Structures are given as structure tokens and as C-alpha cells.
């Protein structure tokens, strides 16, 4: 029988939750890397046993971990005994070496002054759709790195950071992070990334050159609200059959594009608040979209003490609250940008994790919810693998 594996990254370790296709009874394993911030874990679509994880700490910096057995065992790539010595005999240990290409230069700091580009952590790992050894990393300060040796070494795709607008990029409240990487399933050289607070960018040539794709976004906190860059994009998502259609949760506003990001229109419609972080698309219905509105940019919790996922079956504009099984009083949780996922079983499952440590699943597209676990550390990311 088919099943699912849910990869949960938290502020104090990672957890792996598994269930059969009914998604009712869960086995929870962990914490892996207890005490470390696990920003993101994601499995290769080509080889589900290959999982990459970003492990970080304010004290010890960045570590990249990899599992080749579905999360049972882990090691930093390049630290296995056979990898310990390079040709000249010196140990490798470079899986956590993220060095900007060339002279890094400066970007704009919170106060508007130039600030040196400094690597802080990996926010998001996006494995290739075709090669288990290729994986992309979105990092803070915003840049995109690529590994073609299963995470042993990393090279910056510097065409993004050195874009002519790069010096004008400014951090959002959470830091200047590249947090979303989407690969076009029909044209792998086409990718989108999203950066807080620079905006959305697209490459059509595998990452050599990039163009800002923010036309139609309005950000009233900026001196020029419709500027080419500077927008605090929180998350973008697409359906694999329709890569020209993108959905975006912005700092404020839910947006959609039907031309690969060239133009955006607002689809916030009747949402109780159009501020939020995650956005995702149903696995089999390209016009069914999910968001979790929170109260405001200064009150990062759900409105009215009610944890409600909102679903639109019309590609935005018209939204319905999904509440069955979710707390509807005294709840003040948030759902972060990488903490929502969908599986690809016949009846699509929706998953999300909260800053208060709950992870929920709906095995029926959002109609009914149940907790997988309610007492995890604060959840940073949720991904799901659909297993044959």
C-alpha cells in the first residue's frame, strides 16, 4: 500500500512522520539533530531515499546533512570514510562551505546604508527533478547555490546576486533570505526564486541570467510601491501541469500570474486578511490553492484565535475557510513560509506545521484535519514525500 513520509524541520531538531495511504495512524521518529535549527528538509523526486537537510546554529553556523536511506541515517556529504581525504590528502569537509563568487560587494541595509554580503544560513534546499545528485540551495544573505555532487561542494549561481538591482536589495524582518526555489517541470532551465525583500526572479537559462518578475506587485511600505524590486514576497507555488501559472503570498496580498511571472494580479478576494506566509496548490486541481492568513505584519498569529486554512477552488478571488478539526478558539499560532506541503495520493493530502508546534494533515484536500503531532518545537518547514 502506498504511504507518505512527512519531513518536519523545527527550531530544535527534525522529525520524520510516516503513515500509510489512509494518513490516520502516524509513526514519529526524532528528533534528529536535536537542539539545532532545521530550516528545511526535502527529498529527491527521483530517489525518495535521498533526503537533503539544512542544519544550522547561531553558534556553529551551517551544516548540510544527507540521508540515502529515507532518513534512517544521516551524514554531512563528503564526511564518509572514503571521502575523508582529497587527492592532496587534506580532508574535504566542504559541504557547509558557501562562498560567494568573486568580490561579494554590498546590498542595502535596514537603514539604507550599504552592508557587506554575508552568508548566514541555508533556508531552502530544492533537489533537481531529474538528478538525485543535483540540488539547489537558497541562502541568507540572498543567493542561489548549486551542488552537482550530492551536496559535497557548492557553487554560487552568481548571475542572480550580481543582477544590476542586487545592490538595492534589502532584508525583510527575517533577514535577506532566498527562501523559495521553483523548477519548471517542463523546462528545467527555467526556474523562479523568491527573496525577502527583493521579490521574485526568473531564469530561462539554468541560472546564468535572471530577470525580476514583479510587475503588478504593489508594496505600500516602499517609496515607489510598484518598483521593479524591493517587494517582500513570502512564498510562490505552481502546479506541475501549468508552470506558467504562479501563485504568490506576499507580505500583504495574494497574487497570481498566468504568464510565468511577467505580470501579476491580486486574488486576495474575500480573505479575512491577505497577510500570511505559505501558499500551495492542490496536487490534482491546478486552480485549487491554499493559504493561512494571519492578522498582520506586526501580529504574526491567526485572526480571532481561530486556526483556519483558506482554500480557493477558483484560482484565487473566492476563498472558503477550512476549520474541521482545527482549533477555533484561543489559538495564536503562525504558519511559516516553508511549512505547508501537499502529497500526490489520489485524494490529495494537505499538511502544515505551526510556530506553536502542531503539525496537521488533511487526507481529503482540506475538508477534515487531524494532528500528526501537537507538541513539536516551533515548526520551520514541512515537506511530504509520497511513497509507492
Amino acid at each position, binding site marked *: 500500500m502506498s504511504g507518505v513520509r512527512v519531513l518536519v524541520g523545527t527550531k530544535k531538531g527534525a522529525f520524520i512522520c510516516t503513515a500509510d495511504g489512509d494518513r490516520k495512524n502516524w509513526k514519529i521518529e526524532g528528533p534528529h539533530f536535536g537542539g539545532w535549527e532545521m530550516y528545511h528538509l526535502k527529498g529527491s523526486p527521483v530517489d525518495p531515499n535521498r533526503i537533503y537537510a539544512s542544519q544550522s546554529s547561531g553558534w*556553529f*553556523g551551517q551544516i548540510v546533512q544527507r540521508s540515502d536511506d529515507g532518513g534512517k541515517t544521516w551524514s554531512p556529504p563528503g564526511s564518509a570514510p572514503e571521502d575523508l581525504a582529497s587527492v592532496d590528502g587534506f*580532508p574535504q569537509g*566542504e559541504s557547509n562551505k558557501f562562498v560567494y563568487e568573486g568580490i561579494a560587494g554590498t546590498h542595502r541595509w535596514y537603514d539604507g546604508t550599504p552592508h557587506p554580503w554575508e552568508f548566514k544560513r541555508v533556508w531552502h534546499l530544492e533537489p533537481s527533478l531529474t538528478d538525485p545528485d543535483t540540488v539547489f540551495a537558497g541562502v541568507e544573505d540572498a543567493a542561489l547555490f548549486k551542488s552537482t555532487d550530492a551536496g559535497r561542494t557548492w557553487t554560487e549561481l552568481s548571475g542572480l546576486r550580481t543582477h544590476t538591482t542586487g545592490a538595492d536589495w534589502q532584508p525583510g524582518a527575517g533577514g535577506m533570505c532566498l527562501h523559495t526555489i521553483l523548477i519548471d517541470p517542463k523546462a528545467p532551465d527555467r526556474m523562479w526564486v523568491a527573496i525577502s525583500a527583493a521579490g521574485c526572479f526568473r531564469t530561462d537559462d539554468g541560472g546564468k541570467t535572471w530577470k525580476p518578475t514583479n510587475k503588478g506587485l504593489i508594496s505600500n511600505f516602499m517609496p515607489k510601491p510598484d518598483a521593479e524590486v524591493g517587494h517582500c514576497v513570502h512564498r510562490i507555488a505552481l502546479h506541475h501541469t501549468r508552470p506558467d501559472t504562479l501563485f504568490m503570498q506576499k507580505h500583504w496580498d495574494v497574487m497570481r500570474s498566468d504568464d510565468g511571472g511577467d505580470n501579476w494580479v491580486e486574488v486576495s478576494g474575500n480573505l479575512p486578511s491577505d497577510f500570511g506566509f505559505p501558499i500551495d496548490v492542490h496536487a490534482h486541481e491546478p486552480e485549487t490553492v491554499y493559504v493561512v492568513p494571519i492578522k498582520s505584519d506586526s501580529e504574526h498569529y491567526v485572526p480571532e484565535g481561530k486556526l483556519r486554512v483558506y482554500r480557493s477552488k477558483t484560482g484565487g478571488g473566492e476563498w472558503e475557510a477550512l476549520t474541521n478539526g482545527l482549533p477555533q478558539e484561543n489559538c495564536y499560532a503562525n504558519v511559516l513560509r516553508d511549512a505547508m506541503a501537499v502529497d500526490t495520493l489520489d485524494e490529495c493530502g494537505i499538511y502544515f506545521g505551526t510556530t506553536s508546534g502542531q503539525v496537521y494533515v488533511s487526507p481529503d484536500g482540506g475538508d477534515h484535519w487531524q494532528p500528526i503531532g501537537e507538541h513539536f518545537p516551533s515548526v520551520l518547514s514541512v515537506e511530504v514525500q509520497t511513497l509507492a
Partner: protein
Amino acid sequence: MVRVILPHHLRNLAQLGPEIAVNVESPVSVSRILGSIEQAYPVLRGTIRDHGTLKRRPFLRFFACGEDISLDSPDAELPETISNGSEPFLVVGAIAGG
């Protein structure tokens, strides 16, 4: 052999016991101790000092013979009690975070 005590999380990361001993060429200095640690345990590269600049990570401190030597030159020779293993060299995580 130089004795070294690492913070809990780095010991877990490298799967080490409470104390390690590393061979360090004379004259023994912080940079030479860290080089020996990184050679023996490559997973620790970049976790105590930066890959490129080799600067100490901001929330880590180095202690020898009861003294905080974090701000001393990393190439300064350390006391004989460190180089002969009588006293351990300590890498300590700062108390921070509240």
C-alpha cells in the same frame, strides 16, 4: 598530544566523546590546534572558524589555563601545560539566547 574539550553540539556532530586528543606541531597555537581538529574531523570545518577567513565564529570562545584567549592572536604560542596535555584547550559556546 593536545587535549581538547568541545561544546556538546560539536561533539555530537562529529560523534566524539567528552574529550579528544590531537597531534599538534610545535609551537602549539590556537590556529594549529584548530587545523589539527579540522584535519581529523572534517565535519567540524566551518563550525568553529569561518572557512575562508579562518576567523573565530562570534559566539564561540577559546580558553586555556583558565584564561579567555579568544581575542589573542591565533598564532600566539600557548603555555606548555596546553602543549604537553596537562591542561585541556577549551572551545566554549557563549551563553546567549535567553
